[in-house]
């Protein structure tokens, strides 16, 4: 009885999964991008974090010219598949066609973190973890086997430098992604104020698809830093965190 339930469940999963995938694609292919978006958003809301779902959602938003929302989803897809050229190309295209000029990250931490964009955070962390564990094993051998120390000195020094480098990059990447997460403007134009409130003066405006890093939050206002160094407060409704 119990096995039959499991078999039935697996059968349902195997049957439903391809059917679900077709619903979004069908809507998209028929030009019903709003429905495709709704469908993919629902799947994400149920906890499915799949490269293709984010990418397809980005494609659907692109078809509607909503560059900000499209960019958000391409970025999320890229986090899961950092070596996917198609995603990178779509991000580059949107950065080119949006009104705000794209300027590369200027901060030191951001630049150090950008060295590792070939890897996703999970891959980078796994690599760092392997090297970290290997480093500790080497250190234990170095500490325990006194007779091997002379032989191990130089390999251990080189390995320490490599491990230190990878750990630094990993730390910068995780810090940047968690403490200063990327955010994208998703409304046609958003005013950036000099302080956290409507009573402050508007310093400049950002357009749909503009990117910045979130520094802090105060009620409904978020302090962002643009890649060209400009700082300001923006309404939280106007942006979406990656």
């Amino acid at each position: 009885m119990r096995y039959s339930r499991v078999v039935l469940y697996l059968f349902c999963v195997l049957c439903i999964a391809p059917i679900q995938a077709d619903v979004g694609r069908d809507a998209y292919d028929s030009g019903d991008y709003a429905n495709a978006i709704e469908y993919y958003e629902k799947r994400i809301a149920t906890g499915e974090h799949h490269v293709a779902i984010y990418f397809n959602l980005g494609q659907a938003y692109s078809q509607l010219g909503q560059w900000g929302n499209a960019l958000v989803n391409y970025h999320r897809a890229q986090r899961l598949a950092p070596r996917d050229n198609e995603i990178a190309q779509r991000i580059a295209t949107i950065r080119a066609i949006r009104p705000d000029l794209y300027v590369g990250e200027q901060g030191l931490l951001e630049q150090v973190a950008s060295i590792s964009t070939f890897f996703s955070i999970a891959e980078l962390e796994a690599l760092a973890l392997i090297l970290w564990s290997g480093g500790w094993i080497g250190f234990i051998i170095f500490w325990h086997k006194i007779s091997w120390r002379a032989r191990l000195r130089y390999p251990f020094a080189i390995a320490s430098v490599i491990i230190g480098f990878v750990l630094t990059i990993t730390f910068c990447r995780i810090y940047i992604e968690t403490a200063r997460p990327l955010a994208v403007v998703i409304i046609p134009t958003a005013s950036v104020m000099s302080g956290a409130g409507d009573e402050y003066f508007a310093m400049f405006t950002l357009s749909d698809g503009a990117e910045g890093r979130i520094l802090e939050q105060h009620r409904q206002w978020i302090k962002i830093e643009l890649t060209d160094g400009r700082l300001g407060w923006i309404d939280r409704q106007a942006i979406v965190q990656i």
Partner: protein
Amino acid sequence: MMYWLGLFMIMFTIFPQQSFSGDDDYFLEIFVDNVTPFVGEQIAYHLRYYGETQTGVFPQFPSFEGFWIGDSYEAFNQIQIIGERQFFVREVVILIAPLRDGEYTIMPASLVVTGDVFRSAQVYETNPLQLQVRPLPPDAPTSFLGAVGDFTMSANFDPSVSLTLGTPFTFEIIIQGTGILELVTPPHLNLPDSWQIIAQPAIYTAPSIGIPLGSKRFRWRIIVDEAGRQTIPPIIWSYFDPYRQMYITLDTPIFSFNVLPSPSNEIRLNTTYQTDYLRLKPIEPASQIVIGDWWHLGWLIMPSVFFLMLLQNTLHHRNKHKVALRRSKTARMRALKRLQILETSSITPTKLTAIFYAYIADKLNVSNKQVTSQSVTTVLSQSVHHADVISQIQSLFSHINSMAYIPEGASYNFVEVVEELSGLLIQLDKTWEYHI
């Protein structure tokens, strides 16, 4: 060319009446480098003031109504001796440009000196400045967009060799020179209408120390709609040179590049996106392995292993040390007991030496036979690093050995020697270093 340092320098110096007597503490002067500029021509408005102090002195510029106000900078800030008096001299320059032709009046500048306990606040004011702004000559070329000054133009193209259809590239025009660059508008790009051309915000770099010329960069992101050999024709742009009083036309070279077909082998790109261009990815069920966050504990595994090994090692050493201490104590107690039970009459150097050797043997947990004078010397040199203790032992045993040669019938105070040996054993225990 610093033409604005130019032709007609005129100085309007306005001093209060008493300043000529040399008694006044503050002076203010203003001048421009050209009183008959052309419309849009950059002129430098200099405000220089002399003061006995630098603090509490605030120059105030006029409003420059009818002028474009550009960059400002400090020309100098130094100390000068004038008429045997020391003055702090500071000159600030503002670059301005008249926006229409005709007669202009620049309102007076002023210098506010705040008061203190010795004097009241004072305001020094200059006279207004009169300028006669000339109109630009009428024969302007079609590529003239209002820039007045002395400029150069260059273009950058990225990538310079080839690109894939649908990939945007950046085309950049840099205009550099003297003149109000903030008023310079981008040149017209004579590109096919079917190309997507997205103008980016211009980047203005003001002149500064070491960089006498300002620059303005205009950027466009361009997406070409067709694969094959493509060309960007020369960009033509004109400006009016007020020094030569003529229009100058500049152009860029022709840029040629190859556009490769898109990854889907398209040779023509529709400006409206199509499903083929924005194709979807297949969603493969269960292709993602969700591990969760528990594996972050992996960061702690190897350090934990190391610290456990370190702990185990420390405990092991501590245990061995305890055992050695206990053995040492037992050896000392046993040696002291042996010394105590020695009858005064039966004390001989041989017995004393044997007791000491037995003490060393007990301490090292070896049999008495293994302990020789040679091994005792070695052990002492390795384990006791207090030279005075070693020398005391050596002198005591040379003393003990010498007892073997005392003449028959002579008496000797053995009790004192035993007490000294007992004391030495206690001292030896205190200074003994255990190699575990």
